[in-house]
């Protein structure tokens, strides 16, 4: 169980994490989602005690990570594939980690086998591809057979086989009753393996719900997608009528709080030629884009600003 409460982390005047609260529960894969730079990695580094929070707390199984007597046995951590000395072999890297906790070499060979690293175990980590580095990071996380796993972008750089392997692995780990916190900036990746999703943008919590709830939220609002030759006047017209408009590439507008009929009528009123028009059943990807779009100061803000 990972509990993050009102966590804030500032670097000088930059706020990387801003009052973040969420919980990752046992037996569950919790997806930690946000655009690059949203504060995912910072949050994870604070949870494992590498960085000190400016305010708030982060605990694992009710205790601060720094107070754990045997961290490897409680929390498996993979933060970055480049957390290894490039001159050291994968085997020696894992042995040096294991020795801090008195874990035997048999267990090191076990996790090497489990992560498919055998052919590369005695090669220097500096020669590894990103995918091999990820496998080495995951091997290190599994070393102490921990009840909690924190994996930062574990599928980054993996080949399709590797991606499938990680998905299956995290599902199995959760099925064994472990807590798995898994970050990604790709929604579809998490949709396939996470039970719950915590979405952050600019260090703030945007959503904390089950995958299904987030899809429903998108569908419930009923988005209308319209493609026109000239989206600008139509956007203004719709905003004036009280709809919410998100502008996308290729002259596409996504409209909320307006029906297909209302959008079509509005297009005629401002003399815009409609190329496509239809209502959309939401998807996780879209829900994510909507949520993070605001945090990214998406172009829609400019459209709305112009209409006021």
């Amino acid at each position: 169980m990972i509990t993050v409460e009102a966590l804030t982390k500032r670097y000088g005047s930059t706020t990387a994490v801003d009052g973040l609260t969420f919980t990752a529960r046992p037996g569950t894969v919790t997806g930690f989602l946000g655009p690059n730079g949203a504060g995912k990695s910072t949050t994870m580094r604070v949870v494992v005690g590498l960085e000190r929070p400016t305010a708030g707390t982060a605990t694992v199984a009710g205790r601060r990570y720094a107070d754990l007597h045997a961290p490897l046995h409680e929390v498996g951590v993979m933060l970055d594939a480049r957390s290894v000395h490039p001159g050291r072999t994968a085997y020696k890297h894992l042995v040096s980690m294991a020795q801090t906790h008195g874990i035997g070499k048999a267990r090191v060979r076990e996790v090497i086998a489990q992560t498919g690293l055998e052919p590369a175990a005695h090669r220097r980590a500096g020669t590894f591809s990103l995918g091999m580095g990820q496998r080495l990071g995951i091997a290190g996380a599994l070393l102490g057979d921990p009840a909690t796993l924190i994996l930062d972008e574990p599928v980054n750089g993996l080949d399709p086989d590797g991606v499938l392997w990680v998905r299956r692995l995290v599902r199995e780990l959760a099925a064994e009753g472990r807590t798995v916190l898994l970050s990604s900036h790709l929604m579809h990746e998490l949709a396939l393996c996470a039970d719950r999703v915590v979405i952050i943008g600019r260090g703030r919590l945007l959503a904390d719900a089950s995958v299904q709830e987030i899809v429903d939220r998108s569908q419930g609002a009923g988005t209308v997608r319209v493609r026109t030759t000239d989206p600008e006047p139509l956007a203004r017209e719709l905003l004036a009528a009280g709809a919410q408009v998100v502008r996308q590439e290729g002259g596409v507008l996504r409209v909320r709080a307006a029906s297909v009929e209302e959008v079509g009528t509005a297009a005629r009123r401002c003399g815009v030629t409609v190329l496509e028009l239809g209502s959309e059943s939401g998807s996780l990807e879209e829900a994510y884009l909507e949520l993070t779009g605001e945090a990214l100061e998406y172009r829609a803000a400019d459209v709305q600003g112009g209409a006021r």
Partner: protein
Amino acid sequence: MTTVRAAPARTGVSAARVLRAEWTKLTSLPSNAWLALGTVVAAAGTAYGLGLFVQPGDGRSGSWVVTSGFVLAQVGFLVLGVLVGAGEHTTGTARTTFATVPRRLPVLGAQVVVTAVAALLTALAALGVSVLATAPARAGDAPALDLSVPGAARALLGFALASVAVAVLGTGLGALLRRPAEALVSGVLLLVVGEHVLAMNPGRVTDTLRAFLPSSGARLVQDDAALAALDAATLGPRLGTWGGGVVVAAWVLVVLAAAAYRLVRHDVR
């Protein structure tokens, strides 16, 4: 996945375990072995070269010829220490290391110990090879290695002590500054450049400053006669037999304390 459950008995972090891990980390980098070899070659090569130019009337002793390689070899010991202290932070290994040992200080302590042991072994090897390498010089005009000369045996021991001190100072600088280049430059300034720049302008102030630089640790490799000559020439404080060792030890402690403070108080990236 049944293999995951078949885990060994659960044991926690202890100082002895962290020490074993740091020894594995030190010895698993081939570059460290090359560095030790290079340091031995530098020490013995310098001693061999300088030995050829020693004349009977120079006032140099047999131990001076053997330990004269320290002037160059100390850079090797400094680099070894700096790489242990700063390597963590530049390669990203620090994230793994300090997530595994979140109390952090046992890691710094273990790094100091493994650096000291590696430096001691390297220094003893350098000393042995230097004795062999200076045999041709002794067959010529250089004085014999006579351990009954006052302070000669202590000078040989001092070579090992001064080497360990320089290496551990490097570990402290590396852990404090977290970048090998900065740590190395600081170390060379403190150990080599400062001494030489100040020695160009002898005077009460410059000689006093010189006495309190960690380069005073090099006095450990001198026998009694050479130390007496140094003390007679200085306008600053006379450090006597062990004063140089005390000065470098104080530097080591202060730098390590600063490194420990930074390690505990600051974030690890």
